[in-house]
């Protein structure tokens, strides 16, 4: 599309597990285990995956709240993987974060004014119009009453609190915002408001988003491209509409089939096409060899256990990490939707259940 603002290659974060008196490392949780991502200027990349797949850790690595174990992160042409303290403070101006829980991301002892002005004070940004005025402009920008300057977070609803968090992230006029599940703690009716606010702000302020979420419909609404993560790996990256219409990775197929269909007349058909996965996500302490998804995949063969599939670009532009990507024929086989693939999946699952090895 355009120039990449953020490039991530082979990014890893292993959390050590220590034991004994000497705190010897006995194992590591491979929360993020070699992911490749590119976020272009002005676009929104959605990052989806189920709980514990490492998407939040990835966000914290990119904003450099956490120190990566391996790989590289390049922001705006600058390698920020192991950036030093001084330059890191400057980087904070360009990369900001919106947090998941608006009840824990605002200090209960500070007023809204203190919270929103904190970035300006920490970064020593001059405010010619005065700090209070600057904060009130930010509050207005996110749709809050600027008169609420002296109020405390406990006096606001969840949606309003999240707006305060957004105002704080915008205070430094960042180029990129990493939003870590910004709406998953909110009521459904409020989610739309906040998502639309983020959308409007992107247009007004020329922002680039990395939007981390597990809610596929929210991601579909806001993203230009979507990356799917499973157990510390990116399994598929594709433009939004392509990904939702033609998922290539078996995990994405299963994920998409789990999206509820709001239209009752289509619900019956949708349920027949549902791909149900069995078993649990394996432990990130000891992930499966080869492809991480093979233990739950209905297309898995011997090669999947021995060789890790790299993230490669298919003919239709999808980036998929799979030895046997799901084709359109499989999805739309026999002219009656994706039921063939689903049926095949069910057969496979049935045999897996009958014979676990």
């Amino acid at each position, binding site marked *: 599309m355009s120039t990449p603002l953020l490039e991530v290659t082979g990014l890893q974060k292993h959390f050590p597990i220590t034991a004994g008196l000497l705190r010897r490392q006995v194992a590591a949780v491979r929360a993020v285990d070699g992911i490749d991502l590119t976020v272009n200027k002005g676009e929104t990349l959605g990052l989806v995956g189920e709980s514990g797949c490492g998407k939040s850790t990835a966000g*914290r690595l990119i*904003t450099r*709240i956490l120190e990566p174990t391996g790989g590289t992160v390049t922001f705006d042409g600058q390698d920020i993987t192991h950036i030093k303290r001084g330059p*890191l*403070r400057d980087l*904070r*101006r360009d990369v*900001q*974060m919106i*947090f*998941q*829980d608006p009840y*824990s*991301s*605002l*200090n*209960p*002892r*500070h*007023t*809204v004014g203190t919270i929103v002005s*904190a*970035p300006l004070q*920490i*970064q020593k940004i001059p405010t010619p119009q005065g700090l*209070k*005025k600057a904060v*009130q402009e930010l509050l207005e920008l996110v749709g809050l*009453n*600027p*008169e*609420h*300057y*002296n*109020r*405390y977070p*406990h*006096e606001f609803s969840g949606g309003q609190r999240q707006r305060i*968090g957004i105002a*704080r992230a915008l205070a*430094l006029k960042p180029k990129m915002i990493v939003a870590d599940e910004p709406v998953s703690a909110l009521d459904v009716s409020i989610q739309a408001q906040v998502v639309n606010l983020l959308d409007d702000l992107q247009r007004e302020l020329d922002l680039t988003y990395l939007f981390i979420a597990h809610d596929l419909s929210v991601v579909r609404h806001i993203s230009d491209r979507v990356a799917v993560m499973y157990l510390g790996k990116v399994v598929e990256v594709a433009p939004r509409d392509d990904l939702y219409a033609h998922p290539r990775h078996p995990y994405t197929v299963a994920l998409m089939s789990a999206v509820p269909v709001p239209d009752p007349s289509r619900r019956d058909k949708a349920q027949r096409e549902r791909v149900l996965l069995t078993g649990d996500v394996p432990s990130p302490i000891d992930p499966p060899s080869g492809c991480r998804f093979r233990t739950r995949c209905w297309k898995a063969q011997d090669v999947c256990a021995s060789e890790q599939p790299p993230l490669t670009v298919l003919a239709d532009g999808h980036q998929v990490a799979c030895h046997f990507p799901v084709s359109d024929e499989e999805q739309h086989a026999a002219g009656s939707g994706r039921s063939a693939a689903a049926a095949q999946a069910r057969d496979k699952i049935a045999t897996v259940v009958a014979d676990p090895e």
Partner: protein
Amino acid sequence: MVSGPGASLSEESTHDVADPAEGGVNSTTGKAIEGRSLRQIAWRRFKRDRVATAGGAFVGFLVLVAIFATPIVSLIGHPIDAFNNDLIDPTLGLPLGSFGGISGEHWLGVEPTSGRDVFSRIIFGAQTSIFVAFLAALVSTILGAILGLAAGFMGGWVDAVVSRIMDFLLAFPQLLFSIALVSVLPDSFFGLDGRLSRMAVLIGVIGFFGWPYIGRIVRGQVLSLREREFIEASRSLGARTGRILFRELLPNLAAPILVYTTLIIPTNIITEASLSFLGVGIEAPNPSWGGMLYDAKSYYQSDPTYMIIPGVCIFITVLAFNLFGDGLRDALDPKAH
């Protein structure tokens, strides 16, 4: 409380031009929007708790008495070291008259043998108790807050070392240590007189052995607070550790620190009284509640008044501090129960 969006827009311009004192009542809006801080909410809650308010009032009264002990005693006109041999029965050594010689002149009676005024000595004893208890609590709070913050926030070996020191101190026989320490220290040092130097020793010893109680609370709170997202948010803004510790964490620790400080003060009063009773606290001619209890034990079978008065003082003071501290905890943290 919330005015309409249209109204707020028109207000905004006037508000900023003509409002040097922020939050002041604005004549155009009639009522400025001002948040109620958690402190104000806690104060309202505290005011509704009558028992705690009474405890707090008594604590305030005692503090005033302690501060103005010297003028109060000189106003009454019975110096603490004035002997009144004419009020003592020469054969028994007991005060003349019933109830320890309580009279219009000597409100709480006189001391057996010497005839010194008990009321004046109680006032000065209060000064000793309150000063020692408050300053020792201050020492404990400062040490406990700093070490607890460091242990909780830094973790790793700092946490391990501080936690082991706290375990060690909590298991240490404080009373025996105090007795041993006082017996080897000189009677006065640093140019302080006997009373002040002993008070300094008591403050140091009681304060030093008290900090692990605060330290544990602070460490535990920091462990839970540092996982909250606002700490992460502050870090993602580029905040230094000092700002995170003192601007983000400490305001959230103010409530538990305040509550536990008010709850260790009564313990300190009892410790001070115990040490003075054992003869290693305040030295003999100077008055202290614990010392008076010790003196009274030779006479209580014939006249218990002299024992009852300091005992009741200790009891009421400790009770008042505890009720005040409990009320404070309820007001600051209503979810604690």
